[in-house]
């Protein structure tokens, strides 16, 4: 049977990828941010997942605004990173697991989550950078990966409550998969930041920390907020933090908190790492 061994959260800021590529992770600006990933990396080495499901939002690489699925699942055996317009060298491609993806898609639809299935899906920094931060760079990635994209770009975007429910459905889908596969779910994005408008540059440390504490132990707390309320506190791009709830919903209510790391600012953003043990 597939087993969800845990969940991890991570921001997916573009600058994080640049810092890794340029070997800056131990520079003063970056050191504390990256050092806080070490316990998460150690845990991954110990539990050795076969596959990660990465919950993230596409930033205009795979999805244009002509067709914007609220939830979209990669259903392929390979996922390629590509130039997002900045001329950066793409990472090595990621190996998927199409049979597992299609099982998840079927189960989600049966549970009334009408997910968009994607047999081709380019993965951008939102997917790539958390994997790079947690596993390092590789020509052959040490883990398979499945992208699960959530629209947090073009409103209306789903609510925190809906994301938590999707996570619960995802958990059921994985638990009903007959093959032995050890899965870790990555909830990415956030935390508080706003890139646009006269309010650009906001970071709300107190709100971020409260979100981390509650998402770890009492995720229903987050569902009291409308998206407008989250944007008001966490910024227009801070809405991404709702994607952490997809990860959290897939885990047991009493999953153990192994590690909490918060850093601000990194680039324009408050950045949080949670490691939750589901075993």
């Amino acid at each position: 049977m597939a087993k969800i061994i845990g969940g991890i959260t991570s921001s997916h800021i573009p600058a994080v990828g640049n810092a890794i590529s340029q070997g800056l992770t131990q520079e003063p600006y970056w050191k504390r941010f990256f050092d806080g990933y070490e316990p998460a990396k150690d845990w991954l080495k110990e539990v050795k997942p076969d596959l990660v499901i990465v919950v993230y939002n596409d930033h205009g690489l795979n999805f244009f605004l002509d067709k914007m699925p609220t939830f979209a699942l990669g259903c392929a055996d390979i996922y390629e990173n590509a130039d997002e317009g900045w001329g950066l060298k793409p990472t090595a491609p990621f190996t998927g697991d199409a049979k597992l993806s299609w099982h998840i898609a079927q189960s989600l639809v049966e549970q009334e989550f009408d997910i968009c299935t994607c047999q081709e899906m380019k993965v951008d920094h939102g997917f790539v950078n958390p994997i790079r931060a947690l596993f390092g760079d590789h020509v052959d990635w040490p883990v398979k990966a499945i992208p699960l994209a959530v629209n947090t770009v073009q409103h209306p975007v789903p609510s925190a409550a809906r994301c938590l429910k999707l996570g619960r459905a995802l958990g059921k889908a994985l638990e009903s998969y007959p093959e032995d596969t050890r899965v870790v779910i990555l909830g990415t994005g956030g935390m508080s930041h706003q890139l646009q408008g006269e309010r650009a540059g906001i970071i709300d440390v107190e709100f971020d920390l409260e979100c981390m504490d509650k998402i770890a132990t009492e995720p229903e707390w987050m569902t009291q907020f409308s998206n407008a309320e989250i944007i008001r506190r966490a910024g227009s791009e801070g809405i991404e933090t709702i994607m952490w709830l997809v990860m959290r919903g897939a885990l047991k209510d009493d999953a153990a908190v192994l590690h909490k790391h918060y850093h601000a600012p990194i680039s324009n953003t408050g950045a949080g790492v949670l490691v939750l043990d589901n075993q």
Partner: protein
Amino acid sequence: MNWQKQDYDDIPGTYVFDGQRAHPAYAINKLLYTFNDEACRAEFDADPAAYCDKMGVTGEYKEAVLAQDFLGLLRMGANIYFLAKMCIPRGVSVQDAGAAFQGITTEEFQQRLLDKGNGLSDILAKRGDYWNG
């Protein structure tokens, strides 16, 4: 008929990218999306006006593209992630754009960000259960 009011409309200094913004700015965002392709970036650079015409970007949108008025484009509905595909290769970072929105220098904008982290170590120590290296 007017666009429906939204509960985020009154958040100051914030332009939530919704249908009301995405609809009139569809052509400009489509032009920006093509910049994922290096050949399209080169074609644009060779003749920006002709590229706007080809992509159906007209009027004030075209003028803003030709003037590289990133701020104006954002206000007219260009999405920040799509706009980044135009401004980052031209040496204008998202932080430069944020500073311009506030009428301050990028250095001032970056300092304000850094100030958000003041006292973080103490805050985390008080909470007790955070890694605090």
